[in-house]
């Protein structure tokens, strides 16, 4: 699967950034056209091989609700995987946003973002890395499994998440990719995976509608 994120206005010549994501991840359909979105949702259900009618309905409703929720805000895409990893079930989510950095100086954006994330205090660790040809910030945090859990006193599982901010070469934008998983025993695998995905970032001139 490739995440293609459009930079700027939607024209044929608009650059897109492309991230390579393993085929294990199912992208939550976020198409704006209802028919296309519904078709893509059905495809996800098919690809996952779910046979229980109730479960298919539940997932279908949730995918649609999530699509409505994400139709506003800065998050451009989210995907999840449900796999067997070294003999046990494992799951993770991948979420992507494009963030305006206000500078084409990738070094400044990375150093500024790293410092801002350190000062914010939410992250257990913040680091600066060179991912191939990209300077990047990585930040790791742990939090309750759902927003609001802590507030209503429920004790849920812990989600560990890692965010990578990669400035887009030649643009005043950065891709922010977050991988989150409750499967802490698989953390090392997911951490490596996320860094590989971030390393794969490329800018292409092709409009996403023409990639097909």
């Amino acid at each position: 699967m490739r995440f293609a994120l459009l930079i700027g206005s939607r024209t044929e010549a608009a650059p897109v950034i492309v991230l390579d994501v393993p085929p294990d991840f199912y992208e939550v359909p976020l198409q704006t056209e209802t028919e296309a979105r519904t078709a893509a949702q059905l495809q996800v259900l098919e690809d996952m091989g779910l046979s229980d009618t109730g479960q298919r309905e539940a997932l279908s409703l949730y995918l649609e609700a999530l699509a409505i929720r994400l139709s506003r805000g800065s998050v451009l895409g989210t995907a999840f995987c449900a796999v067997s990893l070294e003999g046990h079930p494992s799951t993770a989510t991948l979420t992507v946003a494009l963030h305006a950095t206000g500078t084409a100086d990738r070094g400044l954006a990375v150093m500024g973002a790293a410092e801002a994330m350190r000062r914010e205090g939410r992250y257990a660790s913040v680091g600066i890395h060179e991912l191939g040809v990209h300077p990047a910030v990585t930040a790791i945090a742990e939090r309750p499994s759902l927003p609001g859990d802590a507030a209503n006193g429920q004790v849920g599982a812990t989600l560990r998440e890692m965010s990578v901010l990669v400035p887009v070469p030649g643009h005043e934008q950065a891709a922010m990719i977050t991988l989150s998983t409750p499967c802490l025993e698989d953390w090392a695998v997911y951490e490596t995976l996320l860094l590989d995905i971030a390393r794969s970032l490329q800018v292409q001139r092709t409009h996403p509608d023409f990639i097909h």
Partner: protein
Amino acid sequence: MRVDLVLGFDPTPSEPQQLVVLSDVLRKVIRALVQARSELGHIGCTGSVWDGPVGAPIAALLRRYSLQMSALEESLVECLQAVDSWRDGVEERQSQVTSIVASVADLAGDPTAEDRRTRLIATAREVGVEHDRAAADLAAAFEELSGAVEQIVRADDDLGELDRALVALTAAIDDWMAAEAPELLRTAVSLGEVAGLTTVISELVGIAALGRKPGDAAGVREIIARSPGSHRLIRALRRQWLEVAPATLPEATFSSRSSGAITDILSGRRTQTATSDSGAGFSVGGLKGSGE
């Protein structure tokens, strides 16, 4: 047999053990310098945080240090070679002197061997001259090292320049944070929230049991409120789906713990895309910006 007692002088004074220690220390310093120089030389390359207008002056200064370190490294290597060559020479010369000393000792008490003894002692003195010449070469190598160190000390002015560049960088970072950090942190929080909401899918699929009813969480309640089938969604989210979890899950393609393997998978897929468009069995594209 003590050389100075037999010959009246020691033509090849040296402490071999101390030379071994000196040689080891020089090797360690050279290794550390090579590593530091290569890291400094890498600064400012593509992919580095110093690869930009704000970091570039600092990278340029650090690369200048790299050049100075290169000169220092060259002098150290010459010193090491001089020490090693001195060690080898010392061994040879001391062995020659040992043999001379044994011969002179054998001649002790023999009044007819005066000429031979004189010749042997003269040979020992020649060895001593050679030894002094080698010592001078060694000293010259260390003189050169001292000169290289001196040059670096004189280049202290660069440190002031570096200091000013670092102050400018700190100011630029502070300005950037003042303008951009709030929005950046909002985006980060938002991504985390969406990641949490997407995790609910794993619960619906039955492969994650996070120990609570997702429908009771604030973020999910917001989603339910916007859903066209909210009452059915509430019911679905209150169910436990573990019993209908898929019997088998596909083996993760990224399960290898080696980063290279994942890279291979990704690059293999990229090649496939280029040659066979979207018919390679994985979807392409789909996420579009909001600026449409």
